[in-house]
């Protein structure tokens, strides 16, 4: 929209023909023109006189609009404009008139006494005119030639999301988001277009042009997100952009706009989507004994705890009469201790309720002719799932951005950003990493939480989460992340500008953690008062926490970036030209220091200073990297039909030896707007726009994980051995490194089609691509183990990824005023190794040429053996050397050699192993549906994976992966002579040979999930006007309320790691309020 401010003002003047109305409501506020009819139903005279109103609807250029819907809100009278944009409708003075048309902003006004009216509808941002943020600049969507997708803040607003990644999941095709687990403060990670490299690799994420961890950002501050997918669009970022770029633009103020204050609140309650349902103690002991017995029968693993018939009898007694006294009895072999025969549902005890989260966001924005500003404050508080653990996570975000038009030719900008995180959780112990933070798979149901005397149970042999949480220390961290950016835009000459900015970031992280030692108690001696804690035997300190210690860790990162570029843009007749060139340099330094002391003066004062430790543990690290790049871009367009773009960047990285340090990455892309060709006129009524695109580019990748990969350093550490009375430091031989490896190179070819149809109602894009990752840095050829270390890395493997993605977006409104939209996207990609000479024997334990990433090799299995004789037939000793019995898994001898094994475990001789599936998610899709009617709005967001195979493992699938595990009730369907048709095989600790990767337990992990379901209600404008508010919206929302999947019940299809903090479904209410 090229309207100037003055032109807008004119629209509000009476003209000779009739009063002209505009939807530029805010402008009219500013002008304060008493003759202007105010927006949103302000009635100036309340007169209930019925009259006929005639009018015309035009666009901003005065062209009549045909087929617009005109409604009177209080009478529900409707009309449609005719061929000249004219309409007639019955109204009464004071009622509210609404005019709607697809592609234009909605018009609403109250009616004063009048007979004719002219309505000017302002165009809604046409998707083609939309300006998209690209690397070092912006571009009109119509002119894009690369594979670029963008999403606006709509996808993020009013949701119970705690990080940006959750909001972006499923919103952009082939932007694959792995949301973290459900732990407060967990983070998301991103991938663009599938498997990148054997070395990992991830997209470059930039927030307002600098590399900020997106997990630090408040989703509420985000204005738009652009994803640069192909090499051509990402090339301008060079060596870090090989796997795409995510550009996050935060909200900013606008010149000449009124002050706007927004507040929003989201209060949610979360609960794990799935929690394992553990067996009760009777089942547990029965299964344990069964597994132990089977181990003895056939030479397999046996249990180290021995349960007797007496235990079973006592457990039955407790189940019948669950009083505390019945949960324990004195160990006949050790009168100071109890044996446990209770029945505790640990999952239920540990995770009883809902986990609250609240988020408040306040922002202030606006601008005058010379200055614009945006500032915001966000506060998020989230509590942990294990209520007794009192875990708390806080995040605070503060932003201030100011732009100043200093002169006609100079604009200055400054931005400050502050992100703080605080986390407070139970202390770590040597036994449990982060207690209460994960689902432990070894909490045995037989143990009560407390002994009858009130002391915590555990007795040194079992770990009691409740005892640890109450008696142990805390683990706290906080981080401050401060970003300062100063920038300028110089416009010295017409069509020419120079843009520069300097960013400085300081990140400080501090962690303080401590453990405490505490006593454990055993049995009250026989004859004593079983309820008296003072009579309980003292068993000594809880062993895994002694000695108590305090640890403090500080990390400090400094990052600085300079961006400077110049741009020339002009149109010569049918020729359009834009040339840009610039410079970028970045430097990052990390330093850390940590200290751990024991022999505390008083463990209730956990501070590193208060100790009597002769030899505290001290450590520190330092590291840095630097990057320099020069880049250019040329855009040329002829007649708005033929588009071409050329990019190049010359990069240097500190991560390679001087001789291999520099690399040039070129790319080119072109587009053809087919719809503007005269021979396409026949398609005009249907298609508004059609564009074909193609691009090719090559990017280097420097992401290697370590800062100095080409330098061999000598590892060091501390001995366990005590020399005299102290341990000593050691230094030992370095691994082998080669100094000759260099950047891996990633090239992408992309073909795309963009179209707009049905009068801009439907927009769509389709892209198909091939990405080649060449010269991946991998370890050297497999060498005999006597080398004693790994072979040095080199650029020696290639990978190709093929994929496609499609986006479709439909928006429309019905005559009733019902407005709705549907956005659908789907993507797919597959990756395959194309060069890998490190594995000449074709070992399946390694990559090989032709290996598809994610492929699962496994045995073919078919039920369980019915008899011991059948089980003994095939030689399966290579899988498991014990004696196979009825109820073990029946594996197929596919190569008919009389034995089931993996042969030489190579491609040529894989024995009975075959590819049985692929664990990479395929056909990722997202569907966002929304509708608005009267003051209600509804959004449903569905996300899913079309195809995925997964071989689950672990306790919550197999049950007794070891004797320390506690199975779930799903494992109860195991084979016994009485239950020969069971799902699971005979109980064995560790499974014997049964837990092989195999066909019959392979899971279909495809799913469809409702990610978001939101119902909102916006207060009518009549009420708002009285309260002097511009918008008030209430909503109810839920994340992850439903999922459809065929997967095994104890698992969430998005989180296969059952030990991790479970992911959650949330229910929330919220409020959005604008002044």
């Amino acid at each position: 929209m090229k309207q100037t401010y003055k032109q807008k003002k004119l629209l509000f003047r009476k003209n000779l023909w009739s009063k002209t109305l505009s939807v530029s409501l805010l402008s009219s506020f500013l002008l304060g023109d008493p003759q202007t009819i105010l927006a949103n139903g302000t009635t100036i005279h309340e007169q209930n006189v019925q009259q006929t109103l005639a009018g015309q609807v035009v666009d901003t250029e005065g062209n009549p609009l045909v087929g617009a819907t005109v409604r009177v809100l209080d009478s529900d009278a409707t009309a449609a404009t005719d061929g000249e944009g004219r309409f007639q409708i019955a109204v009464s003075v004071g009622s509210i008139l609404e005019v709607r048309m697809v592609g234009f902003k909605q018009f609403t006004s109250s009616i004063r006494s009048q007979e004719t009216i002219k309505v000017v509808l302002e165009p809604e941002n046409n998707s083609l005119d939309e300006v998209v943020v690209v690397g070092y600049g912006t571009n009109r969507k119509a002119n894009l030639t690369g594979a670029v997708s963008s999403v606006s803040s709509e996808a993020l607003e009013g949701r119970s999301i705690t990080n940006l990644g959750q909001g972006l999941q499923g919103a952009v095709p082939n932007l694959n988001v792995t949301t973290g687990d459900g732990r407060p403060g967990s983070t998301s990670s991103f991938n663009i277009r599938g498997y990148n490299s054997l070395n990992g690799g991830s997209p470059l994420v930039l927030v307002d042009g600098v590399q900020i961890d997106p997990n630090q950002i408040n989703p509420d501050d985000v204005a738009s997100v652009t994803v640069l997918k192909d090499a051509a669009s990402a090339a301008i970022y060079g060596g870090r952009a090989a796997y795409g770029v995510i550009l996050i633009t935060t909200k900013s103020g606008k010149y000449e706009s009124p002050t706007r204050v927004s507040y929003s609140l989201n209060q949610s309650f979360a609960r794990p989507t799935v929690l394992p349902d553990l067996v009760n103690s009777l089942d547990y002991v029965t299964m344990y004994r069964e597994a132990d017995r089977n181990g003895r029968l056939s030479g397999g693993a046996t249990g180290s705890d021995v349960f007797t018939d007496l235990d079973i009898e006592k457990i039955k007694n407790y189940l019948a009469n669950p009083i505390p006294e019945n949960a324990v009895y004195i160990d006949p072999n050790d009168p100071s201790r109890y044996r446990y025969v209770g029945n505790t549902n640990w999952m239920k005890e540990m995770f009883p309720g809902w986990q609250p989260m609240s988020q408040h966001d306040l922002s202030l924005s606006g601008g005058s002719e010379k200055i614009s500003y945006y500032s915001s404050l966000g506060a998020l508080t989230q509590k942990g799932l294990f209520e007794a653990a009192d875990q708390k996570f806080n995040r605070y975000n503060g932003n201030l951005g100011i732009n100043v038009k200093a002169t006609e030719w100079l604009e200055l900008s400054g931005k400050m950003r502050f992100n703080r995180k605080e986390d407070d959780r139970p202390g770590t112990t040597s036994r449990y990493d982060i207690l209460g933070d994960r689902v432990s798979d070894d909490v045995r149901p037989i143990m009560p939480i407390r002994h009858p005397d009130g002391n915590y149970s555990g007795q040194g042999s079992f770990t009691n989460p409740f005892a640890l949480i109450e008696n142990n220390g805390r683990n706290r961290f906080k981080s401050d992340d401060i970003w300062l950016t100063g920038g300028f835009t110089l416009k010295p000459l017409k069509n020419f500008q120079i843009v520069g900015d300097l960013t400085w970031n300081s990140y400080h992280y501090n962690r303080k953690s401590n453990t405490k030692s505490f006593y454990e108690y055993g049995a009250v001696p026989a004859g004593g008062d079983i309820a008296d804690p003072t009579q309980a035997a003292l068993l000594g300190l809880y062993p895994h926490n002694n000695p108590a210690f305090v640890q403090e860790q500080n990390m400090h990162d400094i990052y600085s970036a300079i961006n400077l570029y110049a741009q020339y843009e002009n149109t010569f007749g049918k020729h359009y030209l834009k040339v840009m060139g610039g410079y970028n340099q970045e430097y990052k330094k990390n330093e850390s220091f940590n200290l751990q002391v024991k022999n505390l003066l008083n463990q209730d004062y956990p501070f590193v200073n208060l100790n009597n430790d002769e030899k505290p543990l001290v450590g520190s690290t330092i590291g840095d990297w630097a990057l320099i790049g020069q880049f250019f871009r040329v855009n040329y367009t002829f007649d708005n039909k033929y588009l071409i773009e050329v990019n190049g960047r010359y990069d240097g990285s500190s991560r390679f030896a001087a001789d291999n340090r520099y690399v040039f990455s070129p790319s080119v892309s072109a587009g053809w707007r087919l719809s503007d060709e005269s021979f396409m006129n026949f398609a005009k009524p249907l298609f508004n726009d059609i564009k074909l695109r193609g691009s090719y580019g090559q990017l280097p990748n420097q992401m290697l994980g370590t800062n100095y990969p080409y330098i061999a350093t000598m590892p060091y550490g501390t001995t366990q051995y005590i020399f005299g009375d102290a341990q000593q430091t050691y230094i030992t031989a370095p691994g082998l490194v080669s100094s000759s490896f260099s950047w891996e190179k990633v090239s992408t070819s992309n073909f795309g089609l963009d179209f707009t149809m049905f009068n801009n109602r439907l927009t769509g894009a389709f892209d198909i691509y091939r990405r080649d990752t060449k010269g991946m840095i991998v370890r050297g050829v497999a060498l005999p183990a006597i080398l004693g270390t790994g072979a040095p890395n080199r650029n020696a493997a290639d990978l190709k990824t093929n994929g496609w993605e499609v986006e479709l977006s439909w928006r429309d409104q019905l005559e009733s005023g019902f407005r709705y939209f549907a956005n659908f996207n789907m993507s797919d990609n597959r990756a395959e190794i194309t060069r890998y000479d490190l594995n000449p024997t074709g070992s399946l334990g390694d990559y090989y040429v032709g290996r598809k990433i994610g492929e699962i090799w496994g045995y073919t299995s078919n039920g369980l053996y019915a008899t011991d004789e059948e089980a003994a037939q095939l030689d399966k000793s290579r899988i498991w050397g014990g004696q196979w019995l009825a109820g073990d898994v029946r594996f197929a001898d596919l190569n008919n050699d009389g034995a089931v094994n993996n042969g030489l475990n190579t491609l040529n001789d894989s024995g009975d192993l075959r590819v049985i599936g692929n664990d990479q998610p395929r056909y990722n899709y997202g569907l966002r549906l929304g509708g608005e009617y009267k003051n209600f709005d509804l959004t449903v967001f569905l996300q899913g994976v079309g195809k995925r195979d997964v071989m689950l493992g672990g306790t919550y699938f197999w049950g007794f992966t070891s004797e320390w595990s506690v199975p779930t009730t799903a494992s109860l369907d195991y084979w016994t002579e009485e239950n020969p048709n069971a799902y699971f095989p005979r109980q064995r600790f560790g499974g014997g040979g049964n837990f092989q990767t195999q066909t019959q337990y392979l899971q279909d992990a495809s799913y469809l999930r409702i990610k978001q379901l939101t119902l909102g209600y916006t207060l009518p404008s009549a009420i708002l006007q009285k309260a002097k508010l511009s918008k008030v919206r209430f909503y109810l929302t839920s994340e992850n309320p439903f999922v459809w999947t065929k997967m095994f019940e104890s698992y969430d299809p998005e989180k296969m790691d059952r030990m991790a903090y479970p992911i959650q479904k949330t229910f929330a209410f919220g409020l959005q309020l604008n002044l």
Partner: protein
Amino acid sequence: MKFHKLTIYVALATLCLQGCKNDGFLDRFPQDQFSEPTYFQSENDLKLYANKFYDNLPLAANFDADNNSDNMVPRSQDALLSGTFAIPSTGGGWAAADWLLIRQCNYFLERYQRAQTANAEMYAAEVRFFRGLFYWQKVARFGDVPLVLRDLDDSSEELFGSRMDRNVVMDQVLEDLQFAVNNLPENGTEQAGRLHKDAARALLSRIGLWEGTYRKYHALGNEQEPLQLSLSASEQLMQSGRYSLYSTGKPNEDYYNLFIQQDLNGNPENILHRSYVLGVSTQGYTRTATENNTGVSKAFVEQYLFKDGNPVATTTYTYDDSRPDLELLNRDARYIQTIATPDFVWRKGEGVPEPLKTGLPAIGTSRTTTGYWLIKGRSSDLAQFNASQSDIDAFIFRFGEVLLNYAEAKYELQGDLSQQDLDISVNLLRARVGMVSLTVNVAADSNGLDYGYQISALLREIRRERQVELIGEGLRFLDILRWKAGKLIENPKTIKGMKLTAALRNEYQQNGNDVSSVITDAQNYIVIYSNIANARSWDNKYYHYPIPVDQINLAGYSQNLGW
């Protein structure tokens, strides 16, 4: 539009002046670690490097180290001895990580001479001691192994070399150990905790005997030299006057107490030990007492002589193994100091109101599989029982083993021993526990262990003495290998426990102990492995572990015989 053109020029110049290359800005080096060119300069560099290997000294700290032998019956069967060990695809003791220590030794030995210090050879001696130790461990597991004496890189031809005859490798091991003996400082002049000549002599005493007898019983030839090396190393230790057996004149306690010392410094039997200090580095063996899931085998318990110096078959005492409190009567005093018998106090100390006696052994629990609960090295003190809070020191080399090595090496060299030889070796160990002396003309044990071949009565007693004295110190499986005595494993009593008669069962049940799940055989001995009908069988391939498949593919090694 007015504008200072100068500004444009400055801006453009800034862009252009940034050269395409800026190595000053891009040169970044690690600041918190050393790299090779700057290392190996001072004596301290050598010392810090040698420190790494001390963590790998073989300890007698966990006395269930004999679970893979005829001495013990762990609840989970030893995979090799029960025939369920499968050829691994990778790993199996032959992964790069398993050869890392040897690489680290060689890396040092190729560079240490750069250091400007008179003591360079002393540190080289430390490292060669360790290289000898590590290579011996490889040979003991795999037999022939590649012999690499320098640090290789990815282009070294030696990588694809074949496995070297084990005798050649062991000759190198013995050479390394002799170098260590020659170049280490005398005991008492070394820095605290470091290796000294006597430690190297003790290892030479152990490995020389191992190698000499291995060559002899496997008929590989050239057994004299290793035996001679072992013998003279032992003699030097015995004649030094620095060592004697730990004894306070309490034959029923000294042996037990020897293994629960919180400080072995100054202990006369200590040649080298691993120190544990509370709050610095501790161990947790005592704690495993109630959950160790193993037990001494019936076969082992039968080896204890009676006070008259005779075995079960010929003793003049009554032998009654129907009850634990009867079986121990009149036996070698090491019996009650190795196995928890009913009067043994297994828990006492601060926080324990009444000392806890063993009573009836806790069969059918995780404490003991066989009823013979191993207490060697386990303290009764509650403070030591707390997990990872034990500061009981562990022997690396003790004089007692040297005496046994001496007697055996000398016998194997000479085919005989003098009474004098016995009196300065085996009989010192016997005297500590109040046993009658062994004499050269000892009578044959008509019911002795079956080694798979005939041995003399005297050698049998020397081996018995070794078995009884060193139980749990991790040498038994190595002894079986060198004696080529796999036949020992086939003894049914190696997987049986104590006798559990109907009367005894009844007694348990009356005391509230449910032992209904404990299985016994026809003679009422406890059966640990219900899947083994009577006895395990030994396959000669077990003398070596197999080489993992990936290494055979990569380097073309031949697989060990039988695998």
